[in-house]
């Protein structure tokens, strides 16, 4: 240890030290403040975004995600997006915007889970059926084509839609644009037809009238495929996010 030398508080050195301390205090408060501003929106865990397959409970997910984007890199349909600063739910943490691009399990396994280095996506999951991102819900029943006993012809989401889907009948290995696939259906069953999970959704005849209604069953994992493919604008089906994720 060096001996403490009492300095004249009015010496230039003391004044300089005081100024440096003051600047550091202001800068420190500023830096901490900006960081906290990024945390505030996520602090209540109120925003419910569809998280990637295998994501653990929202709170743990936000704690453990290291924000490297390795899950984004392995996804064949690029369903995973990293949150931006203004999104207000954890800068750099991945989520799924199902209407734009759902997770259709084109990768066959759960590649994003395998890619995750921190366990934010639970490594206990190895099959798509184990995923619990959320559950589909028929939110606009009156707009549903099947319930009106209507068919559907053409591209599900129009010619300009960028979303991808793997049509096994076209190419078993490579997803193609939804816009590159033409449908000709007597009664619209897109949500059932394109669902990647067995027995997750089915069309049931309605009691009053000739139409059929989509019924979502317990096997549904909330991947968002039905929401993406629904040809009605806005979609009749939306995802209800499961805040406990696949950690249960």
């Amino acid at each position, binding site marked *: 240890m060096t001996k403490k030398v009492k300095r004249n508080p009015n010496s230039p050195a003391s004044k300089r030290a005081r100024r440096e301390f003051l600047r550091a205090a202001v*800068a420190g408060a500023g830096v901490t403040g900006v960081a906290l501003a990024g945390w505030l929106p996520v602090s209540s865990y109120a925003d419910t975004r569809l998280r990637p397959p295998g994501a653990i409970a929202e709170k743990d997910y936000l*704690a453990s995600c*290291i924000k490297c984007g390795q899950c984004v890199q392995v996804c064949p349909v690029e369903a995973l997006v990293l949150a931006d600063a203004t999104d207000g739910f954890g800068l750099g943490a991945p989520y799924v915007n199902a209407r734009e691009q759902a997770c259709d399990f084109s990768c066959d396994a759960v590649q994003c889970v395998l890619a995750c280095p921190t366990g934010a996506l639970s490594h206990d999951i190895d099959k798509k059926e184990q995923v619990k991102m959320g559950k589909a819900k028929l939110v606009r029943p009156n707009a549903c084509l099947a319930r009106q006993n209507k068919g559907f012809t053409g591209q599900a989401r129009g010619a300009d839609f960028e979303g991808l889907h793997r049509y096994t009948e076209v190419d078993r290995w490579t997803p193609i644009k939804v816009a590159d696939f033409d449908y000709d259906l007597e009664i619209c069953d897109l949500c059932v037809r394109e669902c990647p999970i067995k027995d997750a959704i089915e069309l049931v005849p309605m009691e009053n009238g000739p139409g059929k209604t989509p019924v979502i069953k317990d096997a549904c994992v909330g991947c968002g495929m039905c929401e993406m493919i629904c040809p009605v604008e806005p979609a009749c089906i939306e995802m209800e996010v499961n805040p406990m994720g696949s950690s249960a």
Partner: protein
Amino acid sequence: MKRLLNSLKLMLGLAPTRPAKETWTPEAKEMHAYKKSAEQVAIRREAIKEELAAGHSSKKWKIRRWISIITINLLFVISYHFDVQLVEGALTASRFVGFHMADLNSALQVTLAYKHMVVNLVIGTVTVFLLWWALGGRTFCSWVCPYHLVSELGEMLHLKLVKMGLVKDHPLDRRLRTVLYVIFALLAFATGYTVFETINPVGILSRAFTYGASLALLWIGVLFLVEVFYSRRFWCRYACPIGLTYGFVGSLSPVHINYNLENCLHEGECRKVCLVPHVLEITKMGYADDVKIQVGADCTRCGMCVDVCPTQALTFKVKGLDGML
């Protein structure tokens, strides 16, 4: 041991001290006495005059370093966009040909927030720890960190503006970085969220390169402007907790900058270019307590001092490999 403690104290923000004469090694005493002789002073004075007139400065290490930063960051981008799968992820965590790597500071934040550590993260952290211990710790800052390059450009502008008399450097109390380090560690633990990652320039830039521009780049812009117009190298010098993490890792690293008292002219050109000039206090006349000293833990091994030193008083050294290099 005492030297290590001093180097850590200096890194944590304490002011450098001049070692008492009684603590000098006999060789250092002899060297200082020799250097103070009238004849030696005159020789040095002449040499300094020549040095300043020649304006000698090599760019050897700077060029190598820039190539390193650009190559490493480009590899991430190429791996993703051309599906080479060489380094996947971002600098916060990645896979190098399938092998897990995790940034030590990001891993620390995640561990504090999540309070668990999965095997992959342990593997990645240990690998990266050993790597940076071997390579010099803060070597990460000046040889890999993409913000370092941004900041170096900011520094060039800043120095130009200072020369024109348009701006002035405003130094800060260096203890700030230690305080911020503790604050962000506590915040991660208390909130259960990696609060620091929101403002982590390494993560923001690395993700932006690979996954596209994000609004978080505005924060990089703010830091850049602060560094150009207000305080030289503000983030790296006074704020970045990542630098401190890697500083600890490299405090006992074999790769270091070596100071050779005998060759030194004490004119101080090295301290003018250094990002962390407190580690070069030893180059002041009468501040070296030995004839050969390993520069402290806070040193980023950037080699700017090596480039600027006309007499090879500062050189890269690798412990145990002296004969081979």
